[in-house]
Each structure stands twice: as structure tokens, then as C-alpha cells.
């Protein structure tokens, strides 16, 4: 069995604006044709960002996020990586990045093209890290951008919203981070260890997706679960 087939067994292969993309249960998106892997909303150094204000939550979020990112890189071996904005939790985040983590990240970037998409938390290029910082990036028919644009944009892959979905069955409720797509547009889940979710039924998502074609791809333990928008619950 080749590598691609093994990956497809647990990821969901879907079509956005005619392009095939893989939604991986780890929360990364892979475009096989272009050998591009995308992750969104890493929010690196969120722990230290809050610590500055006296909330001393554990300083291990960057380590945890980078470890998961490294696993995904080893699995897909992409030529190009897109970090879809909010890569750092605040504008000084990249400057605060401890040296050990910086070295680790640099090693992961080695030998591949790397794009930092500017986000609202990190509008400027990161300190002392390679890679190019851009506002948006086109890959075939796809356009990678941090915030989903309000004017309908075919082929847009965005982040920013931290989508999550809730399913209620047999009196029990399961909530997971998810990809959400309708064939034209896709919003990626947040990848960072300290990132929460916002329900796709929230009004922040209103108008982004064609309701009747909207599908959430919930991140399961070892596979992705496609659930129709009509089956999802708010709250």
C-alpha cells in the first residue's frame, strides 16, 4: 500500500472549487496535486502571552503544538507549508519564542518552502525565522487567506474562526474541532494546543456557507467524521 492510500484511509478527501484536498484528523489540510500542507491558527506562545498578564498557565503549549506539527510533516512530507495566520498569539510572540523551540521550528522548515499568512494576531513577519510572509496565497484554484472574506470567494481556504461542531445523539453530546466546507469554500480548524472552538452554527459563520451543502468534518481520534450541517447543533 502506498503512502497516499494509507493517509486516505483516515483522512477525508473532498473537493473545493474543483481541487482535491485531504482533511486530516490531526487538523491539517493537504493538497496532493501541489504537495502543499496547510495548518491554521497555531497561536504559538499563547501560554507566555497570558503569563505576561499574570495568568500563569503552563509554558508547554508551543512544545505541544510543534510536536504535533512535526508528526504531520513526517506523515505528508510536503514541499510547501502554509501557516494560515495567527501563527503566533501576539505580535511579540515570535520574539519570545525560546531558542530551543526556534531551533526545532527552523529544522522543520528546512528543505521546504514555507509561507506565513498574516493574521490578525500576527500581522507582521515573525522575528528571526525563515519563510515568506504574505497576505494571501493562490494554489491552483485555491486561495489561502487568514480571515474568510465576506464577499463570496470561490476556492477560498481560511482559518481565523476556530470552527467546532456539536452532535447530539441518544441524549449525549459530542463536541469536536472541525473543518467546515460546502464545495466552494473551506474553513480550517485551529491547530494550536491552547485554542478553543467556536460552533459553526454561531452567527460568525453566517453567510459563509451554502446551508444545504455545508458539511462539517469533525476530528475524531483516528479519523475524520463528515456530518451534514443539518445534523449539527448550536451551543
Amino acid at each position, binding site marked *: 500500500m502506498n503512502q497516499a492510500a494509507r493517509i486516505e484511509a483516515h483522512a477525508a478527501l473532498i473537493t473545493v472549487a474543483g481541487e482535491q484536498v485531504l482533511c486530516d484528523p490531526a487538523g491539517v489540510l493537504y493538497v496532493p496535486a501541489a504537495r502543499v500542507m496547510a495548518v491554521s491558527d497555531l497561536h504559538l506562545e*499563547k501560554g*507566555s502571552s*497570558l*503569563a*505576561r498578564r*499574570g*495568568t*500563569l*498557565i*503552563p*509554558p*508547554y*503549549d508551543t*512544545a*505541544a503544538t510543534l510536536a504535533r506539527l512535526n508528526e504531520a510533516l513526517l506523515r505528508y512530507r510536503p514541499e510547501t507549508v502554509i501557516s494560515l495566520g495567527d501563527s503566533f498569539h501576539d505580535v511579540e510572540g515570535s520574539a519570545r519564542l*525560546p531558542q530551543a523551540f526556534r531551533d526545532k521550528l527552523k529544522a522543520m522548515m528546512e528543505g521546504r518552502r514555507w509561507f506565513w499568512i498574516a493574521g490578525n*494576531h500576527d500581522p507582521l513577519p515573525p522575528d528571526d525565522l525563515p519563510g515568506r510572509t504574505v497576505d494571501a496565497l493562490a494554489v491552483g484554484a485555491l486561495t489561502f487567506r487568514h480571515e474568510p472574506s465576506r464577499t463570496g470567494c470561490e476556492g477560498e481556504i481560511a482559518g481565523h474562526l*476556530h470552527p467546532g461542531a456539536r*452532535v*447530539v*445523539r*441518544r*441524549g*449525549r*453530546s*459530542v463536541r*469536536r474541532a472541525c473543518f467546515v466546507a460546502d464545495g466552494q469554500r473551506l474553513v480550517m480548524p485551529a491547530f494550536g*494546543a*491552547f*485554542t*478553543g*472552538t*467556536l460552533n459553526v452554527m454561531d452567527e460568525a459563520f453566517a453567510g459563509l456557507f451554502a446551508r444545504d451543502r455545508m*458539511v462539517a468534518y*469533525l476530528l*475524531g*481520534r483516528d*479519523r475524520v*467524521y*463528515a*456530518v*451534514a450541517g443539518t*445534523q449539527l*447543533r*448550536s*451551543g
Partner: protein
Amino acid sequence: MAAPAFWFSSVDLTQRPSIESEVPSARLPEPFLKWFSERGWSPRAHQIELLARAQAGRSALLIAPTGAGKTLAGFLPSLVDLATRPKRRPGEAYRGVHTLYISPLKALAVDIERNLAKPVGEMGLPIAMETRTGDTPAHKRQRQKLSPPDILLTTPEQLALLIASKDADRFFRGLRYMVLDELHSLVISKRGHLLSLGLARLRRLVPDLQTIGLSATVAQPDQLRRWLVPQNPPGEMSDLIEVAGGARPEITILASEERVPWAGHSARYAIPEVYEAIRRHKTTLLFVNTRSQAELLFQELWRINEDSLPIALHHGSLDVGQRRRVEKAMEQNALRAIVATSTLDLGIDWGDVDLVVHVGAPKGASRLAQRIGRSNHRMDEPSRAILVPANRFEVLECEAALEANYLGAQDTPPLREGGLDVLAQHVLGCACAGPFEASDLYEEIRNAEPYARLDRETFDKVVAFVATGGYALKSYERFARIRQTKEGLWRISHPRFAQQYRLNVGTIIEAPMLNVRMTRAGRGANVRGGPVLGKVEEYFLETLSPGDTFLLSGKVVRFEGIRENECLVSSAAGSDPKVPYYAGGKFPLSTYLAGEVRAMLADPERWQVLPDQVADWLRLQRDKSVLPGRGELLVETFPRGGRHYMVAYPFEGRLAHQTLGMLLTRRLDRAGGHPLGFVATEYSLAVWGLTDMGAMFASGALPLSKLFDEDMLGDDLEAWLDESWLLKRTFRDCALISGLIEKRHPGQEKSGRQVTVSADLIYDVLRSHEPDHILMRATRADAAAGLLDVRRLSEMLSRISGRIVHKRLDRISPLAVPVMLEIGRERVDGEANDLLLREAADDLIHEAMGEA
């Protein structure tokens, strides 16, 4: 003007209960003697004895039943001392608080103030008394600091705030007595830990401070006696004064003509008889174990209330205004009956109650005694109480409780070592008051009984946690909340941390609740709302769909949706709610009662005391399935409604069953049994799944002896603990109490996902990167003691080893009915969660294929 000399004339009152022979004599000043004699009263022996001991400089614990005049006894030393102390000299600008009274309930403090004001006023004593609670307006609190009352009535949280202020020293300089009310209920919680640390701090400010503890009867008074005096070095105890219980209560079990149901908690069958009892008495208190039971009972009583008797409802989910109105009416004796939950458990005086009805099983014998003490606050007359079992298991339990009460058996949970999260909160509080030296503080806190055995290394870790989070990766030094000065003193590094401390003080973490607002039907969540009916837990709402109906505030309401942070409901037609139950206010069955119930079940001789129908139920179980012997474990398996069930009957109490359920589902999950969920009751445990577990046991694919092997308490317990949502919830509480994350305050709900980090995520990261962090330790300690009852489970597993009886049935058994009705409230994480997702995903496939 000098104080009148006659106030100092001493009177020796010798009619006292003798516990120790060397009792010093008490001095009771003239106004007190006059006041007593004018009313034809004389002080009770224990009141005089407590006074004598206090006047001899001793701290003391007074154990007395309700109605024994405990409160007056507790305050008598203060009143006498205040009445006889010299007036303030000119130029003496400031007098601090003389007596500090701490109660677990705000309402109790208010109640005591009222009760005490009367004798103080009638004797014309120059004593100022005030309460200070979370409800006290800021200007009054400010004024209290400038001009403190002689007696301050307050709560553990307010004490923590007072000692964390810079002028604590001045405020408490004149403190002589600390009166701790309902001490038995305070010491078992984290509030007690916080209070013990506050007390240790007060001792430092006032070394000769005397404590007076007031308590209901407890199994081990020595624990409380140690609690009241400094424990560094450990072992010293306060004096003890015990007043024997008053008249023996008259307790009966309702003998109903009606059928006692096999299951359920409503006790609907007994409503006409309960109503009759209300009619025959002046004022009846009806106690239940859960809020939903309260709602149901209230609704049912009104359904047949042909005389329109004033019957009210009181529980923690109701709107505060509504609760206050009920309390007021009760005080004025305007009510004939009040249906209540544990919100009314503690010693508030409620008018002339002459009957207590307890609906549902009373769980622990101590709890029963306390609740019955509510009736008839005159100690010399017997209290009257009726127990109303709601189902047949509860009949067994009521019988056992009845015997326990007559035997005087007591069950107070064992006291726990002080929580490290609470200590962290206290350390920050101490820094707010002023710079401290770590060694000094360590010596100080070990005076508190719960922390007497704390080792220095752990203490230092807690201090490091307060400073920088205490992580092995030392990257937060520059963000420290407290820092060491050159002299080695720990000092708060920014005033905003003191502000943070004040906003987050306390140990009471409430489940997130949403307001329930009335609106019109069928408009979804898009309409303006009407009045607020009360509150319900967020996690209960999670399981509701629009259109579902449930009971709140005596009404059946229809769930419309959630808008922002409110739950919208509308009036529902009909009277049978679709979702009959919601959690809240569940008590564990005490070890003692559980053992009694087990013994009764195994011994047909003892069934004679049971109503015929209950005995018939047990006989039916014997015919249809089997009854477990005293040392055996019965496991039944049967299919029902497309699922397969396994019901086990360990009779070990809900906590132990809950832990067992977690571990069993984990093992079943691994063995391919696909468990979907489980539910635990006091008596039994049901697990359900998609695979026929009975077949697995019978074929030997998964032997029961292996499933119930004691080794589950090893690796499985550890592994489960780490992933358990219960542990996550415990962690969240520890994180809030310790100050790692902040409480949500009104208006902050919308601060959003960018700012806050959920405790679950922090837990996951900490578990994988620093599993031995001080907060993880605090969490595990809480879980092992509070949530798991591991000790009890371990004893059970070893007892039943080799004595498991498996009965494969083709339908539900009589004994299984009660637990089956509880199903639907517990979650199992793990594969089953993904299983639900798979089902939802499959629906999409069906839809796509045109099959749905």
C-alpha cells in the same frame, strides 16, 4: 465613668454536666442573671460550663443537638466579656473586632444577628453587632474597617478577604473570641481548609485567641477539637462539652395503602397521604434529595391541594428573589408546608415546624438526624418525622436508617488533608497583606489542622506555583506574581495581583448555570423574554433539543433554545415533562447504610419488617433471577431496545459504583464490548453497549472474573484517571481555586476564545509535559477522595473475588428496574464518543444514497 462594680460579682452555678471534674466556676454578671430570672429561665448547664471554660482562657468544642441553645452558649462568653469591659477611654481612637462569628451560610449570619439582637437589646448591653457577607454594600464594608463592630458575623470567604488586607493587623488587634458555627459541616470541605488557614493567620496576629466551636453530633469529636487549637506541634485538643441528645425523635415510615413503585424518585403514590399529614400539622417541612424531586413533589401537592393550603417551594435553582420571599413567609409562619432540598439543611430557625417529612431515602444517618432536628426546636419535646420511601430499594434504606438512628450510629466523612490549591490561594492572600518570610509562613500554616502534616518541600512548591506557576521549564520568572526581596521576603509584584486575588477568593465553584427565561412558544430563540424562572446547569441543556419539556419552578416548560447566556423556554401544555430528571444535589449512601441494606436483602428473615409489596418484589426477583448472598456480587445481562445491558449489584454507594463504571467500560471497550454508557446508583450499576456482553461472559471470551479483577485499580485506574473528564472537571476546580485561571465574572462571558484557555486544554498539556506538577497532585488527591471512593471499591473487589454470580436473562429483572430509570446522564469518553460520530456520519451517507 467606671464600669459598675456589681457586674463583676460572680455567681457559681454548679448544676452542670460533668465531663471533667475540674470545671472552673463561671462569672455571670447581674444584667444576665436579671434577664434570665425575669423570664423565669435559668441558663442551661452547658451554657454556663462553656462560659466558665472560656473565662478560664480555654478554647472549647460544644456538641449539642438542635434546639439546645447552642448559639446563645457560643456567644455568652463574648457578651459577658463585652458587658464588663471598660468603656473606651478618651483618646483611644480605635477598637478592633472583639468576636468573630463564622458560619457556612450567609443566611445563617443574618439569622443569628437577629436572634442575638433581642437579648442584647433587652439587657441594654452596649454591644455593636454587624454582618459582613458578599451582599454587604461597599460603603458599609469600608465603614466597618474604620469603625469595626464588637461582634462581626461573617463567612470564611470574607475572613480570607479581611486577613489579606494591609490593615488586618489593626482590625483584629482586639480580637478575643472566634465562634465557629456548624463546624462539623465546615471542616469537611475546602471552605474548611480556607477557614483553618485564616484561623492560623489570626493566631499569629492574636496569639491568645480563643475559639469556640459549635457542632451537631459527630462520630469523632477529637478531629474537631484539634481543629480548634494550634497544631504546630500537632496533637493538642480543645476542651469538649457534649450535651446528650434531647427527646428521642418519633420517626415512622409511611405505611401506604398504595403500591410502592419499583423505581423512580417522585413518591407520587404517597402524595395523598403526605397531603393529609400536612393538613393535620401546623407547619410541615418536606425534604427531598434532589431539585427535580422537589419540583415534582411540589407540583403533585398542588394538583390535589383542594384547601389551597399555602405550600411553597425552595431550592438552589430558583431565582434568589423568590427564595427570599419564601424564607420571609416561613419566618412569619405564613406557610403550612415548604418543599425543600439541602439549601435548608443547616441550622436556620424556621418558625414553628412541627413535622418533618422526608421523601426519598435519607442517605446517611447523620443527615437524617440533622433534618429531623429541624422540627420542633424545643429540645425537650420529641421531634416528629415521617419517612416516605419513593421506591422499593428506598424502603430497605429507610428501614436501615431507622435502625441506625435509634442505635445512634453516626457517619461523618473522614477529614481530608488540606488542599494544595486552597493553600496556594492563601499564600497569595498573605502576600497581599504584606511581605512574608517563607519559613515563618510554613510554621504558621502548620497550626491549621488540615495542614499540620504538610512537608516543607511541598509547601515550597506551592509558593513557587504562586510566584511563577512552578513549572519545571522556568520561563515565567519575569512574569512572577510574587518576588523575593533582597532580604528574602516574598512580596507581591504588582497591585493588580491583589485585585485579582480579591475577585477570585473562595473555594465554592458552581457548575456553570444559565438563567431560564420565559418566552412565547414556537419562535425559536429570537424573541424578547419574559420573567426569569431560575437556573439550570449548562450540561443539562446540552442534551436538550428544542421542543423537549422539563420541570422548573413547579411548571412544565418547553425548551426553545439558547440565546447568548440565557435559556429560553415557553409554557408547555400537559403535565408530563419529557425529560424528567436533572442532576444536582445527589448524596452518596453512607457505608454504614449500604452495608445494612445489603444485609437486609440477603436475609429473608428480615423481610418481615418490610411492607408486603416490597417483600413480594424481592421474592419476584428471587423467582425471575436470583438474589445475591451477603458476600456475593450478582451480575445480570439482558437485551433491551436494541442495546445490551449488564447490571451489577455491589451495594457500595454511588461514588464507588461510578468509579467501577469508569473502569469496567474501559475494559469492555478494550475487549470489543463497545460500551456506550453507564449509570451508577447507590445500589447498582448498569452498563450498556452494542455487543451482547452476556454472550462474551458465557462463552469465556471475557470471563467475569477477569472483568472484575482487582488489578483494574492499578494501571487501568491510573490510565483512566489521566483521561477522565471527571478528572478534568476536578482539575478545573483546582485551577480556579489555586488562582491559575480566573473565575468567570458577570459581563465577561463574551470575552471569547482568544483570551481564555479552557481548563481542559491546560490539563491535556500539563499531563503530557509535567504530570507531577503541584496542581496535578492536588487534582489526583481530590479525585481519589471525593469522586472515586477507591478504598471502598478495592474492599469490594477483594470481597467478591471468586464469588460473582452471572445470570443471563432475556429481559430486565425486577431488581434492575431502578437503575434502568437513571440511564442517560453519564458519559463515557473514548471509543463510544467516536462511535456516536460514526453514526452521525453514516446518516450523511444514507442521506446521500437517498435512504434516509
